[in-house]
């Protein structure tokens, strides 16, 4: 190896895999816009008490169904509660649902998918048939069923949604592991004495991360929407805890009289879901597995 050839390799900018992905992501304007929106909304939700003097439960019978004004930037609802405040606190609910359900999804979906993918044979067969059965049920109905069984606290809602949503991740991880299993670097690891656990934790899972991250990012808006849907039909979070779904339900009855009551939460929900979707698409392009040249 000539010294000069060495220097040529050295002076090329050092690309790490995550570094490369980050550069690609940064270039995607929509994804960045989505990401920034989410961060801003999260900050607003966390610092809600600083942003509004009202709480989500404070009722004011003197100020029922008012339109947007200086004292109530987004108006009030039928009980005199400030809409802007309810929107901000409701964001907490939505974001919490989005994120915590994914924890459950990972805790169940990842192990099942990995075991099925790595073990193969009968184990794979049985696990996947179980997954197929779960998959065959309509999501929302199953969530409603679980929610009725488990009860209405917010944690049970996480559980209900999470217990239905893990199926996609399990299939995804299994697929990733199946395709990775036949790669030479896995054979190399076995050839030097690596056993199942080492190969799974050190090689298979790290290389499956990309698509899993993308899938989870897409799962979040689905979970948020599911929660909103549950709240819309009345079995989501219980009042007075605010939820954008409940707000939409409340606003729906007055859609012609006071359209702003429906508009604000509906637009907020749409924007949040869009933001996650753009981010997810951006991540998918950035984390494309063909990262090698």
């Amino acid at each position, binding site marked *: *190896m000539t010294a000069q050839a*060495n220097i040529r*390799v*050295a002076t*090329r900018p*050092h*690309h*790490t*895999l995550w570094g490369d992905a980050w550069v690609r992501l940064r270039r995607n304007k929509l994804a960045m816009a989505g990401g920034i929106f989410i961060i801003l909304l999260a900050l607003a939700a966390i610092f809600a008490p600083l942003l509004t003097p009202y709480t989500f439960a404070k009722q004011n019978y003197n100020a029922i169904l008012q339109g947007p004004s200086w004292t109530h930037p987004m108006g009030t609802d039928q009980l005199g509660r400030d809409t802007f405040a309810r929107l901000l606190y409701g964001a907490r609910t939505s974001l919490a649902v989005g994120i915590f359900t994914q924890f459950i999804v990972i805790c169940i979906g990842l192990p099942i998918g990995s075991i099925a993918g790595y073990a193969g044979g009968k184990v794979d067969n049985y696990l996947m048939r179980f997954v197929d059965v779960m998959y065959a049920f309509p999501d929302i109905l199953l969530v409603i069923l679980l929610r009725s069984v488990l009860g209405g606290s917010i944690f049970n809602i996480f559980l209900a949604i999470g217990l239905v949503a893990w199926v996609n991740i399990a299939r995804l991880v299994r697929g990733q592991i199946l395709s990775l299993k036949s*790669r*030479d*670097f896995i*054979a*190399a*690891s*076995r*050839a*030097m*004495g*690596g*056993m199942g656990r*080492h190969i799974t934790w050190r*090689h298979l899972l*790290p*290389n499956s991360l990309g698509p899993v991250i993308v899938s989870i990012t897409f799962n979040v808006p689905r979970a948020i929407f599911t929660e909103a849907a549950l709240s819309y039909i009345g079995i989501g979070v219980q009042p007075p805890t605010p939820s954008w779904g409940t707000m939409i339900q409340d606003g729906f009855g007055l859609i012609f009289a006071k359209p702003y009551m429906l508009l604000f939460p509906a637009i907020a929900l749409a924007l949040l879901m869009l933001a996650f979707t753009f981010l997810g698409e951006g991540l998918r392009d950035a984390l494309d597995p063909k*990262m*090698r*040249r």
Partner: protein
Amino acid sequence: MAEVVIEVNNLAKYFPVTRGLFRQKKIADVKAVNGVSFTIHKGETLGLVGESGCGKTTLGKCILQLIRPTSGEVIFESQDLCELSDKELVPIRAKLQVIFQDPYDSLDPRYTALDIIGEPLRIHEISKGKEYQERVAEPMNLVGLAPYMAERYPHEFSGGQRQRLGVARALALQPEFIMCDEPLSALDVSIQAQVLNLLDDLQQKFGVAYLFISHDLSVVRHISDRVIVMYLGKVMEISNRDELYKNPLHPYTQALLSAVPIPDPAVEMNREVIVLKGEVPSPMNPPSGCVFHPRCYRAFADCPKVVPLLADAGGGHQVACLLYETSRP
């Protein structure tokens, strides 16, 4: 003759072909390796040549138990590796290593060079801290990769450098035997020479034995001490290197050698090319008798009927062909 490192006896690997919706019924076997025996000695390079479908890669993987053979023995350090469980094989695996064909696929894209070379050390829990750093730096040095490259990822290396990385990884545990599965096929011509010289040097230095699998006859001739020619899962000819290339006995070997073009227009102008007719038959349905007879330009009446055994043709040269069997029991 140096001592035997690996002894392979009657190794066979059949892949079942099944059909059926619920209960898979076996309808045929793909006889990838169909009764192969040979020995590899300490410090020697055994070349294994053959075309696609001959079973050479499957054979290599069977020896290392990456694929479990259907039958036969692989004797290493007085133990039959086929009888050992995966767990029991772990300490032995430290002494038997592999270099793969595809320099892009055989390295984990998420590992740095340091991690890649160090993985065998970590699996066998050898050395920590400073000693670990040294033991990783040494193979890197030996294969000619500069130390600052240790923090780089595979996609930042060229094909030849990646292959060197694979060699370094194979050396990390100072093995006695390395199976080289077409290590040069994916590399450019001028880089092939670099890696070939490297493998040569390392063998001189450490006395490691190689099983060098390749379809490139010129390369095999350069590096091997003895050569095996395989076709459709069976051994056609075994010989010392010089003897095989000077005096090929089996018609398949002769056709193979004739098909390799020589980089010299003057020589090529006067050469006759033996063009075999047809293609390699499917290993699911190998021809009867001598598996080569349908394509053989010297086949005669007995060839489809009798399976030729490997017979001694003098001086360590063995050939499986009815043309050379003077008497049959």
